[in-house]
């Protein structure tokens, strides 16, 4: 039985709760990245509206925000609240996103790049929020401005005292022009660039949250904006110290530390924590499996594996071996996650081919080649006894398929169920299996991002290589389960076994030819 640490167990329980509430399709924990993008959209649109009315001057800034908040409460005020709450919600989803990757051990190995570039992205978001609070120019804005300047003064690159600018007689309207430029253009552009880098090593990047989840989140934000509108503190007064502050702890949590530590110490602590987070993928490092190998003799350069690769590790290039095909594929070993999804995409990964000989495919995993997949499937089926013989195809990152083995149930675990070629299911049914039970990471939560999705599409939606129509679907069952879902999967398998037993008298409606090509 796979051991599960308490953090992962707790997180999976939380995910299961959200699956009950939202279903896998809308489960917010499966869409933390896209949900963050959605909140950014709300921030952007509401921010544009606020800027139309914002007065970038020392005396006008506060009054213009007050006008929006109170005189135009029905729209401007709501926009301001949406701007604030969506920004806060974005920090929550980002932090949850980081925690999720940590809890599920999806931050090391081939994922190091996304983690490393994701940590500073959080700081881009935080600093964007900080300049937003300056612009309101209330007591909180003054507090943030003075303390941020003290932090900047501690850096050896800053000459003079920035904090002195916030003493009586020093401040001019140019300050607001600069802050408006930073908040409205400079920082958002940097953030977009950081996000682009963050997803650079991924393919099929989704940035749109599921419609239902987006609508629900927006209604919730809107309701909060009406029930508890965001308001300003008293206007900034350079003769007074902001004494009591309703801090936005999502953005301003480090500032109270400056009342107890020097700016230099605060820098050391924050940069230390950031640095520690950034090097986490190497504490300790996680070994990624051997990269996929291309066998040009079996590759016609169709490029399906390149399309399916979730990590952009496969590219299509001009043929180099003089074969009659125009293209071939190449694997970038540094990007390869060793998921094996490409093996499932290759039409040559067909166990009906090369009967009696070594089966070779266009792209293969050295640690679990397709020939071994076929021979182990055959051996496992041959070893079964009993009336209703089933085979389970599982995934190394989900519930341990080996736990389901019995005298009439064989089990094989793959690097990812996206590695299972549809023809292998047909092969199993033709070689003694009465039913094929496929399990893997929970729906919407594939360890390798798209293994589940591509498998479903190959089986049901005609994605190449597809499962042939004449294969009896009633003998195939897909039930996805996390490592902690033992009870559910065993019940599901028992039910499937009963259904197959009931079909025992009916013939297996599978392909009858030797060649399994669709």
């Amino acid at each position: 039985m796979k051991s599960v640490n308490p953090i992962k167990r707790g997180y999976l329980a939380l995910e299961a709760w959200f699956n009950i509430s939202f279903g896998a399709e809308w489960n917010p924990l499966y869409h933390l990245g896209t949900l963050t993008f959605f909140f950014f959209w709300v921030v952007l649109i509401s921010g544009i509206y606020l800027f139309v009315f914002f007065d970038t001057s020392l005396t006008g800034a506060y009054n213009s925000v007050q006008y929006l908040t109170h005189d135009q409460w029905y729209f401007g005020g709501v926009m301001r609240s949406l701007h604030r709450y969506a920004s806060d919600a974005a920090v929550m989803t980002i932090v949850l996103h980081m925690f999720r990757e940590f809890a599920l051990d999806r931050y090391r190995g081939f994922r190091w790049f996304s983690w490393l570039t994701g940590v500073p992205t959080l700081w881009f978001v935080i600093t964007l929020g900080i300049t937003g609070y300056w612009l309101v120019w209330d007591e909180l804005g003054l507090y943030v401005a003075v303390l941020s300047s003290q932090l900047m003064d501690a850096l050896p690159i800053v000459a003079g005292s920035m904090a002195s600018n916030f003493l009586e007689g020093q401040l001019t309207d140019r300050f607001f022009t600069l802050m408006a430029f930073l908040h409205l253009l400079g920082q958002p552009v940097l953030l977009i660039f950081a996000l682009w880098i963050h997803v650079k090593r991924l393919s099929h990047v989704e940035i749109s949250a599921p419609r239902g989840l987006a609508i629900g989140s927006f209604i919730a934000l809107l309701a909060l904006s009406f029930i508890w509108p965001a308001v300003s503190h008293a206007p900034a007064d350079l003769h007074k110290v902001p004494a009591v502050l309703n801090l936005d702890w999502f953005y301003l949590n480090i500032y109270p530390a400056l009342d107890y530590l020097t700016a230099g110490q605060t820098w050391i602590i924050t940069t230390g924590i950031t640095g520690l987070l950034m090097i986490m993928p190497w504490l300790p490092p996680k070994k990624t499996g051997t990269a996929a190998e291309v066998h040009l003799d079996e590759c016609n350069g169709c490029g399906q594996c390149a399309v399916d690769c979730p990590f952009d590790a496969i590219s299509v290039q001009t043929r180099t071996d003089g074969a009659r095909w125009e293209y071939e594929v190449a694997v970038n070993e540094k990007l390869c996650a060793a998921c094996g999804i490409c093996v499932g995409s290759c039409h040559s990964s067909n166990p009906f081919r090369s009967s009696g000989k070594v089966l070779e495919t266009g792209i293969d995993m050295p640690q679990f080649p397709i020939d071994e997949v076929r021979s182990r499937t055959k051996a496992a089926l041959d070893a079964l006894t009993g009336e209703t013989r089933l085979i389970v195809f599982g995934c190394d990152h989900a519930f341990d398929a080996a736990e389901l083995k019995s005298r009439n149930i064989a089990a094989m675990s793959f690097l990812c169920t996206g590695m299972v070629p549809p023809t292998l299911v047909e092969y199993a049914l033709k070689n003694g299996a009465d039913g094929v039970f496929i399990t893997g990471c929970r729906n919407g939560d594939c360890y390798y991002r798209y293994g589940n999705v591509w498998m479903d599409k190959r089986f049901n939606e005609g994605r190449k290589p597809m499962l042939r129509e004449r294969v009896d679907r009633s003998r195939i069952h897909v039930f996805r389960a996390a490592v902690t879902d033992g009870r559910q999967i065993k019940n599901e398998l028992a039910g499937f076994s009963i259904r197959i037993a009931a079909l025992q008298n009916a013939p297996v409606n599978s392909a009858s030819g030797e060649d399994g090509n669709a």
Partner: protein
Amino acid sequence: MPSAKRLILQLVNYTLFMGLVWYFSFSPQYVRLTPEESMITLALSHAGKPVQECHRKSQEELAKLPPNMRVLEDCPRERSPVKIEVLMDKNPVIDDVVDPPGLYKDQGVDIYKSVKVPTGDHEIEIRMNDNIRVKGATHHYRKSVSLESAQLLVIQFNSGQNQFVIR
């Protein structure tokens, strides 16, 4: 269309999420100063005196130099550290010595320091030494102040008038 049970559960989850967003967006309240406290900020931008007097070269010394390097005075670049003490009712509230920045320690010193102090009537005394060749304070200033709750008292140095300003 989600079932009624699912919709209710979603409502609960959205409420919890937005509840967290709302709470940490304003709370817990941070009390930086109690009603009995005010703040003194020392904001100083001042260059210390050179660590040594300029040396006036003799004719013999000048003669030894190439013609293009015959400068009459040889002044050291390095400046003195600035030592400053702020006392309130004879008790030090700020006591700092700042070395001049720069590779040759030849830049002006910037000090920005804030301390919380009790409200009420107080005697503020400032002592500064900006010349390493002089013992004791080179600048001295004293003033009685009355501090209100959350008031910010700023101490600056006016280089033009060569004296401290409290406002």
